[in-house]
Every structure is written in C-alpha cells, then in structure tokens.
C-alpha cells in the first residue's frame, strides 16, 4: 500500500469543483519544514524575477575606484576586480539561472509523466521498449551527456536547453511508470474499464492527475540538481557566456582571488546552497522522505 499512501484521493469525475476551496487548507496542513522551504524558494524566485527593480547596481556596472572591497552596507556581497557589485550580479544570475531551471525541469516532467503513464498502462512491448530507453538515458552520467551535446551545439544556454531535457524526462517516466503499474490495479482504474471509458480517457483524466503528485515532489529535488548542473557548466566555461552574470561564472571569477577576496566566490555559492536547502526542506516536508528511497 505504501506506494499509494503518497497519492491524493483518486480524482473522481467532476472532482475539480471541490479542488479550489481546499487549496488553502493544503498549505496550512503542510509541515513546518515544508513551509520554511517554500518560503525560501519564494524569496529567491522573487529576487530573480524582480532583479532589475531591486538590484542596487547594474550587473556590469564598472567602478574602478572601488575594486575588491569587502561586504559592506553599500555592497552587501562586496565588489569584484572590476568594481562590479557582486550582490547585484548574484540577483541577475538568479534571474537567468532560475528561469532556465524552470524551463529544463517542468516541460520534461510533463513529457516524462505522459510517457511513463502510457507505458505503464499498456505494458507489453511498448512498456519494454520505453523501459530500455529510460535505462539507457539514465545510464549516461547526466553531466557528461549534457557536455557532449554542448560540444556539438556550442557553449551557452542553448546547449543546456537542448541537453538537459534529452535526459531529464527519463527519470519522470521511470517514476510515473512504476506508479502506474500499481495504480492500474486500483479499484477506480478498474472501474474506468468497467464503465467503458476509452483507454486514453482513463489514462489522462484519471491516472495522470494521481501520478503528477509524486513527480511534482521529485521536481523540487530535480530543480536543485539542474541548478547545480547549470552552475557547474558555467563554472567550466560551457554554460551562460559573458557578459551575462551567472552563479557558476561569478564563482569561477572569484577562484583566483579566493584568499584576498573570499566573498566573490563564497557568497554567491551560499545563495546556491540556500536554494538547495529550500527545495530540500520543501521536498522532504511534502514527501516525508518516502520518495527519495524509491528513486534509487
């Protein structure tokens, strides 16, 4: 039964009308750690979204009279070797990074859940083929595959936007498929057959809403993985290209002056860690740790 415990009650036809008034209750019922995590993520997303409004300086505003100055009231994260304000650059970097993270996390989630649902529902040959493709995609070290795509597409965000989704759907497909195998034996799914609903109606209207929940829980962790990947690629010089501020490239810039100007590499890194903590708390809070084990 444990696989089902995670899932919300099976959505009955017409259940959508009761969804709306319940949603406020769901947030209140969340454990404290999930609320804190959601709060952290909200702040970071807002900071990125509003970067042009709240950043005290431009992302490439040079000030050669004020280079390598430590964190202070006017420069929260200090300045770098060209006198640029590291805090403002971090905000702009969040804007770019989190935007890309959303783009490479959620569209693959939708594709993966649909593929996994169809494979799990029909079983047989379709399922066997999908399962082997998923095995293959997951066998590649994620980072290496994305870098291979970048080698062809060329360095930059474009390589990330193509490379990550090529692999990312597979994890969701695996998750949705394994749940579908359990779900299709449930009473309400058997009922869809008994009632003579078409298979597609059974899959999309009745199974998929139930499968989405655990994929959405997993997506909080996936966002962290993707953010780390994005920052790592930029650190390697393969991600976002200058003059765009990007978390990994800001940290890479600070590497050579780590001892004399520690803040350039350290503080933007802490922002990445903060995002991970927020997503980790949210994910743990809403899944109670059950999901993580199942993905192993």
């Amino acid at each position: 039964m444990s696989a089902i415990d995670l899932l919300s009650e099976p959505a009955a036809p017409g259940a959508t009308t009761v969804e709306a008034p319940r949603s406020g209750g769901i947030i209140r019922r969340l454990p404290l750690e999930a609320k804190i995590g959601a709060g952290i993520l909200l702040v970071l997303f807002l900071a990125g979204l509003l970067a042009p409004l709240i950043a005290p300086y431009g992302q490439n505003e040079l000030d050669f009279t004020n280079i390598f100055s430590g964190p202070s009231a006017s420069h929260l994260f200090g300045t770098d070797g060209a006198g640029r304000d590291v805090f403002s650059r971090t905000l702009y970097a969040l804007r770019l990074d989190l935007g890309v993270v959303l783009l490479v996390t959620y569209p693959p989630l939708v594709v993966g859940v649909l593929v996994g649902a169809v494979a799990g529902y029909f079983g047989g040959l379709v399922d066997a083929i999908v399962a082997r493709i998923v095995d293959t995609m997951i066998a590649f070290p994620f980072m290496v595959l994305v870098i291979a795509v970048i080698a062809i597409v060329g360095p930059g965000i474009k390589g990330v936007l193509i490379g990550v989704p090529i692999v990312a759907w597979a994890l969701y497909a695996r998750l949705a498929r394994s749940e579908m195998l359990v779900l299709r034996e449930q009473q309400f799914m058997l009922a869809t057959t008994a009632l003579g609903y078409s298979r597609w109606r059974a899959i999309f209207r009745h199974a998929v809403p139930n499968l989405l929940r655990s994929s959405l829980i997993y997506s909080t962790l996936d966002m962290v993985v993707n953010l780390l990947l994005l920052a790592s690629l930029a650190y390697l010089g393969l991600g976002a290209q200058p003059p765009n501020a990007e978390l990994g490239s800001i940290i890479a810039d600070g590497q050579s002056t780590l001892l004399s100007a520690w803040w350039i590499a350290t503080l933007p890194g802490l922002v990445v860690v903060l995002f991970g903590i927020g997503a980790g708390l949210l994910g743990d809070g809403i899944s109670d740790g059950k999901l993580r084990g199942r993905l192993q």
Partner: protein
Amino acid sequence: MLNYLIRRVALAVVVLFGLLVATFFIIHLVPGDPVEIVLGGHAPPAQIASVRHQLGLDRPLLSQFGLYLSRMVQGHFGVSFTLGSPVGQIIGQRLGPSAALIGYGMLLSVLIGVPLAIFAALRPNRWLDKAIRVGTTLTFAMPGFWLGLMLALIFGLELGWFPVSGYSGGIGGIFRTLTLPALALGLALAGVVVRTLRSSLLEVLQSEYIEAARSRGLSELRVVGKHALRNSVMNTLTILSVNVGFLIGGTVVIEQVFQIPGLGSLLVEAVEKRDYQLVQTLALLAGSAVVLASLAADLVQATLDPRVRLAGR
C-alpha cells in the same frame, strides 16, 4: 544463478547497445554540423566536402551507423584531430587520476556515511539524527565545485595541509593530492549513503529477527553490528553503484577545480577544442562504466543473496 546471470548480462548488453545508438545520434541529430565545428566555420566548400568524405559523413546515415558500430565494438575509437594521436591511447593516459579520484571519493563516502547512518538510525529523531539530517541537506545543496573551492580555501590555502592543485601518483601522492578533491566528491555521496542506509537500517531494526536477537539477550552491539548491518551492506553497495554516474559527472568539475589531469579535464579540453570524436568516445566510456558498475553490483548481490537471484522465477 545461471538463469539470473544470463538475463542480467543480456539486459546490460541491450543498454550498452542503446548507449552506442545514443552517442551516435546525439552527434548527428542535435543541431550543429560536426564538420563546421572541426574547421571553425569559414572554410571553403571544397575543403568542407573533403573533410566530410574523410570522416565518412557523406555516406547514408545507416551505413555511417554500421561503420561506427563495428569500429566501436572492435575498440577502434578513431584518431583525435586536435591531439593527433589515437583516442584510445589518449584516454589510457588520463584514466589513472580519474579512477583514483572516483575510488577514493567512494571510500571516503563510505567511511563518513556508514557510521553516521548507524548513529542516526540507533537514536532516530534525537538531536544527533537531526543534526545529521541538516548536514546531508547541506551537502546535497552544495555545488561540488564550490565545496571544492571552500575546502581548498580552508585546508589548502589557510591551513596549508594539502596542495590545492596538481596530481602525483603512488599511495603517498594520491593521499597528498587527491584528499581534498575526493572529499569534495565524497561528501555529497556520503549524504546519499546516510539517508538511504538510515532508512533501511530503521526498517531492519523493526523486523522480527532483530526482536528475536534482542530477546535472546544479545548485546546491542552484536544485534546491530552482526545482524542489522549485515543486511545493509547490500544497500550500501547498491547506492554506490547507482551513483557511479554522479561521481563521474562530479569528477569533470572537481578535476577542473584542482587541476587534475584526468578524463574529466580531458572532456572539457575536448569540448573547448571542439574535438567531437573524443567527446563522443568519452561519453560512451562514461555510460559504459555506469552500466558495468551496476551489472557488477547486481552480480555480487546475487552471489551473496539468494533472494535476488531467485526473485524472477
């Protein structure tokens, strides 16, 4: 056992074949022209055509794929056009540091992760368990390269215990040059080991045979050390094998941070020089390593645990 062995090996062969297909088609279907990449964009059409012919790119896609397949299976990985020597040879020269780094990283993740998981599972939801949980959330959230930089800053630059870049072989050399990189790599994995092992230990500790062992009056050390832990060894093995891909990806970045001349830094060099043949082979190699690691782990598990090899009957 033979039955299981055949089924498991067949599955690995299917996935390895899938990897070959994937590496081939990534090069050919992703937007971007390998020839233009090799020549740098502004080459005369005649030269483009001749390079195209030289690389076999003017043949039909399927015949190219056949050629690629037969070459790869025979171990002819081609010649790197930027370094001028056979790809296999180049990779051989850079394999050592990466293998050492991955092995050392795994070792550290076990040395750190297993004791912490036991502490956490013995007293669940007490302060130590909670502190460990916070710690694992932190290591999960940290970018590997940033953690590497912070370790270099503290233990390399401030305290001067370890050098912050370079590589030298031998046990002493590896200890000196790879401890910080392996720690940067292993800490994130240690977090995964702690979380998974903790929950599996908790499950085992509630089982009836543990209760039976306790009721026979065995000491807690014996109950946990001999009975519970033994069942969790397999779990740890699985966690490690599942995460080989994660470790390989991690070495790409960590080798860059600490300037280690391994396969990861070779991959980055290859991308910078746009040597796609080298990139293709490295991607294939990395994928194969993951497949073989999980095959090895499953076979070891089947040898030691009859429940696994008999499950599919």
